[in-house]
């Protein structure tokens, strides 16, 4: 399941719902991204996440479908927020449930790595010098590329 929303989410409730009632699930892996108050050594106050409505849902849905094809998953969830966020706020949740530990852990890692390079979101950070669009990081491309190689 994918959700793109302005509102915060209840992490515990979301994770519980993912495995609730399915006793074939042996493990739930999750990653939550939070707004940091330090970016590249500079203090930030808050940020605004812009996205491309329509394409965002399309890309997240495709990334999730890819994970469901590669790993034996009973359930998966991607929630990504947009709009104004303060340090400490939750930005993104990726969670996967599988009979097997490795499948849950790997697919969760895959989902967030791919999301970071494919999902059309852009961060505008408030800095003492005004709003700054965050630059993409090469390390994110490299992290995502790992999963392409493994598929060979």
């Amino acid at each position, binding site marked *: 399941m994918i959700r793109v929303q302005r509102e915060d989410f209840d992490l515990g409730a979301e994770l519980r719902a993912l495995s609730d009632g399915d006793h074939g699930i042996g493990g739930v892996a999750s990653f939550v*991204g939070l707004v940091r108050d330090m970016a590249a050594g500079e203090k930030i106050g808050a940020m605004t*996440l*812009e*996205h*491309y409505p*329509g*394409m965002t849902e*399309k890309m997240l849905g495709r990334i999730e479908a890819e994970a469901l094809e590669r790993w034996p998953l009973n359930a998966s969830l991607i929630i*990504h927020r947009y709009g104004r966020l303060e340090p400490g706020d939750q*930005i*993104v949740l990726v969670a996967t449930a599988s009979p097997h530990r490795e499948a849950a852990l790997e697919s969760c890692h895959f989902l*967030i790595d791919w*999301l*970071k*390079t*494919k*999902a*059309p*979101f*852009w*961060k*505008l950070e408030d800095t003492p010098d005004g709003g700054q*669009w*965050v*630059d*993409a*990081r090469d390390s994110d491309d490299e992290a995502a590329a790992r999963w392409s190689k493994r598929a060979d």
Partner: protein
Amino acid sequence: MKLLYFAWLKTKTGVSEETVSPPAEVQTVADLLTWLKRRGPGFEEALADMEALRVAVNQEYAEMTDPVTAGDEVALFPPVTGG
């Protein structure tokens, strides 16, 4: 053709969304960008570094050689930074 601009593409061009009718010689993504650059200094600056630019046609990532046609939705944006 509907054009969308995100992040600093929007800031630099001063446009978030517009409808344009490029001339007939605009056949590909590359053609479209070349044509857009001629629209003024904001566009020229925003589109100066093609490497720093991503293009989606009808909400799918597109290459410079991919075709564009009148009814398309074309979005211009920098590499993504969500998550």
